[in-house]
């Protein structure tokens, strides 16, 4: 027993040290990398006392956040931020895939650090119970004391309020980045004109499938590559072209969920039409994002509907496989009624909360907020988002141009990038400088999209039943939508699922949203 235990201990220590050394050598990071990550504790307790004696003493802040890349980034960016803001930061990264779990269990054990990032809007909805219970500091009244934080957009702040009170800072995102990424070389070789309406997009998907756009005389191409995600995959964007409301819409002066509108059915029919024609991957309901991307980058599929900013990475991998490929972006698609439309997010994709368990008093809270205030100055914001000038990006025409070495950015900057609050207009960082024509178009389309964006009328509203059961109930609708597209149920079957949704709590959600909507 003892011997085994010792061997196990030895094994653990050895593999651990291997992991640490592997990390630091991979990352070209300073030698103290491993050490820094291994000592994240103590700081939470120490911060209030430590900063009292002299104002010069750096504030110690521990930050918990989701990690969207495979490896924990080295301290390059962190050290720079610490210097600029006079802080001592400890970042606790956790993989984004399992972040909700981590968040819930850490909350359960009362171990959340001073600064806690959530994962997305859905996580925020789930967290509202804990927020209402007074687990987090209300920061609304304090914002006016911080000149930079005060610049944050009131409209978006409003979307993140809970019962009219502000508890969080938001990570800003362009309202509507949804659009099409497509193979321009294929379209040109088939002599297709740039689609302007939904029907033309569907026709393009079919043409890409049937007319051998890569010219190898084999039927080995498909139009659309989609994945098992009705929201950030193709479906919701296509639905919005049909002018389907964004989650909720008004019907006879009353809020109703999007799937009760005829436009939603029209969108399902469109998807069904594409799938029945074999113009998309038939297994999309079981396709992961990785598999979807490889369909496009291997030169098998010619259309990708989703976030247009994905074009950089798609293009990079595609030209490795198909050197002659040309990609472009497209948006502002007209629906059957001849009007352009697209859906929009509520202007943020994540928020930061400040747990009371780790921040003892308002004095300590202000110190943390002061750090975020400094983050919203151009110099710090640029470091956080773009990295270090000269190493990770250069300035061209007053815009930031990232280095060619995409792996370096991925490794050192990406992990921090998603934690910068505000957006370029408010935190003063550089806009991006792009060379890929499709990406330049994407940026322009994103701005144009804002004008035709369909907003979610419930973004700032709240329904207890929705918070309690909404996600679970949505599964009913999601499953029914897939089944309709796959032709397993018809409209009658779909309506049955909607009835079921209403019966199990949907009616209550409608009622509750309408009660607060009228006010």
């Amino acid at each position: 027993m003892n011997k085994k235990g010792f061997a196990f201990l030895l094994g653990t220590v050895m593999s651990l040290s291997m992991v640490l050394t592997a990390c630091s050598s991979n990352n070209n990071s300073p030698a103290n990398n491993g050490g820094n990550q291994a000592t994240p504790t103590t700081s939470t307790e120490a911060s209030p006392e430590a900063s009292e004696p002299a104002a010069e003493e750096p504030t110690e802040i521990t930050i918990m956040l989701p990690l969207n890349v495979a490896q924990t980034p080295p301290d390059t960016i962190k050290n720079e931020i610490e210097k600029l803001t006079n802080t001592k930061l400890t970042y606790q990264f956790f993989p984004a895939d399992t972040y909700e779990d981590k968040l819930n269990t850490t909350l359960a054990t009362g171990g959340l650090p001073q600064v806690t990032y959530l994962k997305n809007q859905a996580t925020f909805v789930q967290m509202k119970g804990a927020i209402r219970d007074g687990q987090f500091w209300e920061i609304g009244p304090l914002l006016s004391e911080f000149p930079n934080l005060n610049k944050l957009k009131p409209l978006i702040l409003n979307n993140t309020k809970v019962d009219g009170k502000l508890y969080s800072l938001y990570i800003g995102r362009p309202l509507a980045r949804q659009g099409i990424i497509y193979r321009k070389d294929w379209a040109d070789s088939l002599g297709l004109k740039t689609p302007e309406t939904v029907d033309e997009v569907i026709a393009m998907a079919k043409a890409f499938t049937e007319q051998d756009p890569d010219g190898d005389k084999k039927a080995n191409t498909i139009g659309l590559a989609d994945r098992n995600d009705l929201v950030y995959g193709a479906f919701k964007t296509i639905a919005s072209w049909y002018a389907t409301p964004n989650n909720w819409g008004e019907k006879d002066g009353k809020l109703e969920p999007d799937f009760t509108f005829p436009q939603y059915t029209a969108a399902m029919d469109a998807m069904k039409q594409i799938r029945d024609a074999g113009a998309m991957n038939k297994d999309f309901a079981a396709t992961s994002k990785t598999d979807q991307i490889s369909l496009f980058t291997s030169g098998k599929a010619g259309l990708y509907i989703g976030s247009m900013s994905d074009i950089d990475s798609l293009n990079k991998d595609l030209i490795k496989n198909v050197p002659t490929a040309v990609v472009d972006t497209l948006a502002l698609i007209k629906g059957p009624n001849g009007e352009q439309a697209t859906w929009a997010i509520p202007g943020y994709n994540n928020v930061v909360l400040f747990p009371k368990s780790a921040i003892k008093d308002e004095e300590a809270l202000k110190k943390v907020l002061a750090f975020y205030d400094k983050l919203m100055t151009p110099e710090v914001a640029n470091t956080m988002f773009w990295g270090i000038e000269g190493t990770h990006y250069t300035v061209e025409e007053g815009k930031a141009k990232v280095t060619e070495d995409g792996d370096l950015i991925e490794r050192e900057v990406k992990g921090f990038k998603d934690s910068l609050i505000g957006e370029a207009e408010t935190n003063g960082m550089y806009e991006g400088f792009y060379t890929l024509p499709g990406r330049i178009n994407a940026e322009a389309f994103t701005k144009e999209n804002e004008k035709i964006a369909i907003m979610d009328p419930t973004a700032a509203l709240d329904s207890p039943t929705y918070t309690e059961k909404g996600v679970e109930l949505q599964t009913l609708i999601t499953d029914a939508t897939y089944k309709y597209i796959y032709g397993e149920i018809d409209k009658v079957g779909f309506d049955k699922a909607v009835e079921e949704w209403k019966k199990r709590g949907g009616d209550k959600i409608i009622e509750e949203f309408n009660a607060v909507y009228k006010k």
Partner: protein
Amino acid sequence: MREVIVHPEQVQAPRTGSGITRRLRRNIWLYVMVLPGLLYFLIFKYAPMFGLIIAFQDFKPFKGIKGSEWVGFEHFNRLFTEPDFLNILSNTLILFGFNLLFYFPIPIVLALMLNELRMNSFKRLFQTLIYLPHFMSWVIIVSISYVMLTMDGGIVNAVLEQFGLEKINFLLSPEWFRPTYILQVIWREAGWGTIIYLAAMAAIDPQLYEAARMDGAGRVQQIWHITLPAIRSVIIVLLILKIGDVLELGFEHVYLLLNAMNRDVAEIIDTYVYTAGLKQGKFSYSTAIGLFKSVIGLVMVISANKLSKKFGSEGIY
């Protein structure tokens, strides 16, 4: 001589304590050796069971167990009245039945076959090859299956097409979920499962086989009359343990195979706990479901054990 023997007993006669302390002192090292294992079970298995009380509370993480409100059987009530509950339970039991019926006998058959091999080097090589998949994670296995089974250029469907057959939607059709699941389980675990049986077979006295051959028994007869009866108790113990795990069907595996189209047959208790409970931070509800699951497992083990004793085997306790 007799006096010498009597003597030490008389010296020991004034005992220092009761029988227990005496026995304890005599076997002190045995107890010391058992201590780590005992502590392991106390700390990691029994102590956390106190947490089960949150199944009867409306547990709020920030209020703690002391501060949370008691709600009695509300969570169980919700579980049993959930419209999908029966469906989820029967999915779980059917999948378990598949496991027992199709997976459980395979390692035994494999072990018997391996045992009959004459060439030791070939035997060892084959054994290693078939248990290697055990070390692959489900993510990898499911991804490989996806690539092979997809309708968009998957090799299996390409072959079907070659023979002029209809393409089959393996990944999304409810009918194919269970076969896919069980085949993946067999592929990954069958080789690993043979190890214990092979060990049991190695312990069989070779003289028995010799005697059987003298009496003119063929290979099949030797297997039927010697090998199988010899490993019978091992089979039964493993069967009971397997039944105890009735609802442990591998969350990760099923979750990876689950999608909107096959949810009707693929949603099992474990995946339901994850989506409806843990992902939304409903700890009490999740715990209540977990408790329900454990109770079923316990009942199954006890009845299986009883049954095996009835049929004259030993059982696990």
